[in-house]
């Protein structure tokens, strides 16, 4: 059983913690040992959030080591760009084409990096970068907050595991009245990014 290391990067309030829970529990249901790490607290106040999720035969550290991440899931464009040092040279980056400008950009004191720059930063590690408009897709399906599930749908295509396993975890972890909607969002995400 190969160890698979995931990183999620986003902004407080984007739902990375739910997505991290779904990914971790899917790993568990697929028979892996699983650990995750994230920090709760000030991140709620619009700051940077990061989640580490690791699947493996036996996982010791909940933190992914630099140069060892197989997948980076960027919930927000700028936040994804902070992690090139963590990527394996054959890593895949799934990146949501969505910007939340940080305060200094809003104030006109700093520039938001261009898409080309973000792409080049991430490719400098040797990773493949796949862009897609997860927030827009989620919004089209009725709720932009489902962007994490859309991203997981795309990820599932690359990672493997029967979609039924993923869908069952989503059903278990999402409040009942939103379950069907989220399962649909997962399937749409799955089709949006071919492996």
């Amino acid at each position, binding site marked *: 059983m190969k160890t698979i290391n995931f990183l999620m990067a986003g902004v407080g309030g984007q739902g990375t913690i739910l997505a991290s829970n779904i990914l971790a529990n899917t790993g568990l249901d697929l028979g892996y040992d699983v650990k995750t790490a994230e920090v709760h607290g000030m991140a709620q106040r619009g700051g940077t959030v990061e989640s580490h999720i690791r699947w493996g035969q036996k996982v010791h550290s909940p933190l992914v080591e630099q140069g060892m991440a197989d997948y980076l899931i960027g919930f927000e464009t700028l936040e994804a760009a902070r992690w090139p040092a963590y990527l394996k040279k054959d890593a895949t980056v799934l990146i949501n084409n969505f910007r939340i400008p940080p305060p200094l950009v809003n*104030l006109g004191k700093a520039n938001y990096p261009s898409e080309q720059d973000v792409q080049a930063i991430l490719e400098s590690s040797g990773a493949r970068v796949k862009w897609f408009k997860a927030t827009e897709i989620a919004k089209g399906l009725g709720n932009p907050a489902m962007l994490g599930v859309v991203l997981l749908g795309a990820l599932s295509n690359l990672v493997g595991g029967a979609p039924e396993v993923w869908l069952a975890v989503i059903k278990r972890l999402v409040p009942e009245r939103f379950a069907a909607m989220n399962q649909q969002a997962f399937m749409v995400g799955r089709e949006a990014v071919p492996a």
Partner: protein
Amino acid sequence: MKKLMTGNEAFAYGAYLAGIRVGAAYPGTPSTQIMENYATYPGVFAEWAPNEKVAMDVAIGAAYAGTRAMVSTKHVGMNVSADSLFYAVYTGLNAAFVIGCADDPGMHSSQNEQDNRNYAKFAKFPMLEPADSQEAKDFVAIAAEMSEAFDTPVAVRFVTRTSHSSSVVDWDPQAAPPPRPDPKPYKKDPFKFVMIPGYARRRHPVVEERIKKLQELAEVTPLNRIEPGDAKLGIVAAGAVYQYAKEVFPGATFLKLGMVYPLPKKLIQEFAGRVKKVLVIEELDPFIEEHFRLQKIDVIGKEIFPLIGEFSPSLIREAAVKAGLLAASVPASAQAPAPAVNLPIRPPILCAGCGHRGMFNVLRDAKVVVMGDIGCYTLGTAYPLEALHFCGCMGASIGVAHGFDKGKSQDRHVAVIGDSTFFHSGIHPLLDVLYNQGKSTTIIADNITTGMTGHQHHPGTGYTLQDAPTVKTDLEAFVRGMGFTKVDVCDPYEMDNFRQVLEEHLAGNEPSVIIVRRPCVLQQKVKLPPPKIDPEECTNCGVCLDLGCPPLVQEEGYVRINDVICIGCGLCVQVCPVGAINNQSV
């Protein structure tokens, strides 16, 4: 069944199963979810106490009554409860007393990164340290048994990464604590429980004798184990750091310590005898390392690993490679030059529509020295509000302001403290201002919740941790009852009014209190129509941007409001000098 749990969740589950019936805490990252989760189990009493010292006295009292009890706290909360901790070590208890204590190396959400293992040595009580969630669950029961067997408080130490990391725990939805007999009856025993000097002198030898016995236990307990491996390198580690070290040195011999105080002596000699080199890896202080050195065992420790900050597998590998203990096996990840782009930082900020923003905007413009405190409103120090001058610890603002006054500062100054922090440790200094004829103005920034840690109840919200309706302490009546006569209540959305009240208080020659009240926007969830900025009228002067409100965005030549996140508080309408921003609700 297997279930993924955070260390905090697992500890709460373990506490429930260990028959701990009373829990008390004050919220504090990264420990908060211990008590939040514990409170959801059937048959337990769990409370948010006003502060950690009260929490600890409550748990000690419950244990005196013969019921297993616990507190949970962040590292600095132990400073608040230290006085109680020390007497409990002397008196011992009448049932288990377990302390869940979470350090924050790296200061993810704290004002310092003190190493609370030192408290175990200082106050002389045992401390365990789990390395994952399964151990977090298991160690509570072990701590409870140890507490009763040795008649002592026992701490279980977490760090942010063991509190907030998830890993697999054996979980049984049907599991319940063993039915417990009625609480052990309390028997009067003043020689044990009344710490007057004469009786305390009898207790101190008990404490020393107890620690000796616990040290013997440390030699044989399965909590400390040698994991055989390559004899060239022996690694000593505990907690999260043990897991990092297992990744970096998969083949090495390990001494995994589950009990970090008292530490064994024979076991470490045996371990050192088995390996060529001993490497002690620990975050923060050289706590284990110094113990080895006292036993005259040569180790590599803080000469290669930092005293400061949080560790990670990457940090350990880098230090070990630098010290020649490891070959650089991981290829450098850079495959091509990255473009030289400065990525803008994204610090936490006050939310859109937060009431604290209006308050700080007025304070900044009034050019007063602001003694800050701990909570969301500490974010008032961030650019562009930059309103705070000092911030040290919970409850410090009011005493510091009073001292500033007595120190004959000519600068106008105020203390700013949140409602939850005021109940935590603001009451006594406020009493001091009044009693010692101070003139300071204290602002209680009342958002009717404990905001930063995630909306916990406190004595001013009207509900308990377990959601029972209760007495809601009226802040205004409370401070008037203390003896303050100059007390006003303001809404921070009405900045002109607040400014006027503030000037009046600062001009007066008596101690005073202003309660600046606006419920937390994350809880209240009110959304008024966002104002509109007329791009033709907007002169792009930037005055509204100085509010640092997230929806206000600088565009080419004008400012735009992001309608999605704006909640229509109207502060920008009030500050615009040319009237270019119009409130749609008026």
